[in-house]
């Protein structure tokens, strides 16, 4: 059982990390806790679903289309809910509330269009194949998603650390004034960041929709709190931190079910959240608070 639980945890950890990447990216660059991120995730899943069911696209095409769609939604979100606040240097509270309001709107529009029911991708969209390694089972779908998640994580890291665009994003994250002095179009970089974060959320939406067969307007809610825990664990705004945080949360959840009691699963994650906040508010990998002074 132990090794199967380890596999379960690795798989779940990849899922959590994938979801948390865009969440933490927005915080890292803009210092915004974007509570509408889970709604972009949900929209990504629905766009993917529409691509497959209505437009009859194959899943490998639906994924990039959904990423594009939720990326554009991310940009819209910024233009409508955040940009006006940024322009007047509104406090954290204001952006937080604006993101909550935007999230309510996004969920309710989705409900109006798609209904409250749970939907799933068609059965034949992805071949069902179970690998069995000495009593430990993994599906092809799980391996594929794990693979795509890893590729996305590596690509994001490369983008942030290794490209001119990434350097510009980090410059904007550190100090918008300095970035602007260097000729970096700050507003455009922020837009790109929202696009990337939205696209990441969309990818997570499609892949998790594929994995868990439960696409609904409310699918973002439970992921929201888990995602928050993950990004706090890793340090708000820290890309590697989000990945590590995802695995820590997944392992603590899975192992608490396996060896304690499943009643304690959620309690474990929130107690973990509180402890990290109190002991290391900047997360396990976070830099000191001077970063965003």
């Amino acid at each position: 059982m132990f090794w199967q639980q380890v596999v379960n945890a690795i798989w779940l950890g990849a899922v959590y990390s994938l979801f948390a990447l865009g969440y933490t990216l927005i915080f890292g660059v803009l210092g915004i806790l974007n509570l509408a991120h889970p709604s972009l995730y949900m929209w990504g899943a629905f766009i993917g679903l529409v691509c497959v069911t209505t437009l009859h696209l194959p899943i490998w095409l639906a994924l990039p289309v959904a990423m594009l769609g939720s990326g554009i939604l991310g940009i819209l979100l910024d233009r409508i809910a955040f940009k006006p606040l940024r322009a007047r240097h509104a406090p954290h509270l204001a952006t937080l509330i604006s993101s909550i309001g935007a999230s309510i709107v996004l969920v309710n529009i989705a409900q109006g269009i798609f209904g409250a029911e749970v939907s799933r991708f068609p059965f034949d969209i992805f071949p069902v194949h179970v690998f069995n390694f000495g009593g430990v089972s993994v599906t092809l779908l799980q391996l594929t998603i794990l693979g795509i998640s890893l590729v996305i994580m590596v690509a994001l890291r490369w983008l942030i650390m290794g490209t001119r665009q990434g350097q510009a994003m980090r410059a904007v994250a550190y100090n918008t004034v300095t970035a602007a002095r260097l000729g970096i179009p700050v507003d455009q970089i922020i837009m790109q960041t929202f696009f990337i974060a939205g696209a990441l959320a969309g990818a997570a939406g499609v892949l998790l929709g594929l994995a868990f067969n439960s696409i609904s307007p409310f699918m973002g809610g439970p992921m929201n709190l888990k995602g928050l825990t993950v990004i706090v664990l890793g340090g708000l705004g820290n890309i590697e931190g989000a990945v590590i945080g995802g695995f820590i949360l997944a392992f603590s959840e899975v192992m608490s079910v396996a060896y304690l009691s499943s009643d304690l699963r959620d309690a474990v994650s929130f107690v973990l959240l509180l402890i990290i906040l109190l002991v290391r508010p900047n997360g396990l990998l976070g830099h000191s608070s001077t970063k965003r002074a």
Partner: protein
Amino acid sequence: MKKTSLTVFVLLMLISILVTACGGATTPAPTAEPVGEAPAATEAPAAATEAPAVAASNLPAEITLAAVHDLSGATALYGTAIQKGIDLAAKQINEQKFLGEGITLKIIYEDAAGDPKQAIAAYEKLIANPDVAVILGPTLSNEAKSADPLAQEAGMPVIASSNTASGITEIGDFIFRTSLPESAVIPNTIKVTKAALGLTKVAVMYGNDDAFTQSGYDVFKAALEAEGIEILTEETFAKGDTDFSAQLTKIQSLAPDAIVVSALAEEAANIMVQARTLGIPETIRFIGGNGFNSPKLAEIAGTAAEGAISGAAWNVASTVPASATFVEAFNAEYGANPDQFATQAYTAAWVAALAIKNADSVDHAAIRDALTQITDFESPLGMFSFDANRDPIHEPVVLAVTNGAFDVFKP
């Protein structure tokens, strides 16, 4: 500046107090005498051929039923199914002139959005409306526990069609329901499956933060203990969870005869898919309650749902004669099969109409008395009666998923 706003505030409060005083004085007290008649209630509502026996009616030309259901929010799923059932019943009642020549039934809907507070507000509004004869609803047991006491105090009959938790009809003698409580369904399911599958040890999984699934678990646990079946482990999950593999891996290692699940269909479907993926063999069946009983189960789980057993009040595969007529009518109206929620709501609307007709009055107390008298009403659910606790009596069914759809369980 502060002074003015304070003045305004005090003024507002004074007005409110005034309003309070008036309200207190004019609370309507039920005064009408119960009508002492006991008609034999054996009409078959779906059988349109039977001519209603029209006598001189005391009923008004328009009779209003109010329905408080979740038409928005996460539980709108159920509310909208219920709405379809009620609308179909009202349409049939009016087409058949069931209440008499020139007497029409009107339904007004109020949305409770899954929020007990909104249910209370809706009830209050409806109780204040003198036209409302009966309230149908609310959708959730939580809403019922908050709002039904208002109706009880005001002497307003309530017929619920989706509350399955315990303690609903205990609120008072004006509260009825057409939804078979889990306690009337699950023990039968366990008994039947034990006999058929020879269960000795099972694992239990349930959603522990949801009133419906937790209440189902309570009943399962009692039923399993009553039948002497060992519970190997009790695993929980939370509303909205999508990954159950940790719990299932643990269950797998314990090798149960079956897995008893108290969950809603969407969660149950994912549990089944993940269990089969982990290699839990199909010989280990899933047993569930009302929550399983939805077309969504097989729709989402596909072949993983095959063999899943569900105890239920009703299913589209039901062999009850009135059921077939109803399913046909429903299909003609909406182009899809009804689910259990629609059927129980359909029955509730018909039962209300029947009671009004039998009482020959829209007086609340008279309707209530007539409701208590309803016995062996031929409904899609089966021969329907209310017991002394105003809970429904009819034969529950045990179903199993066969070739992608629920059918009557054949051992």
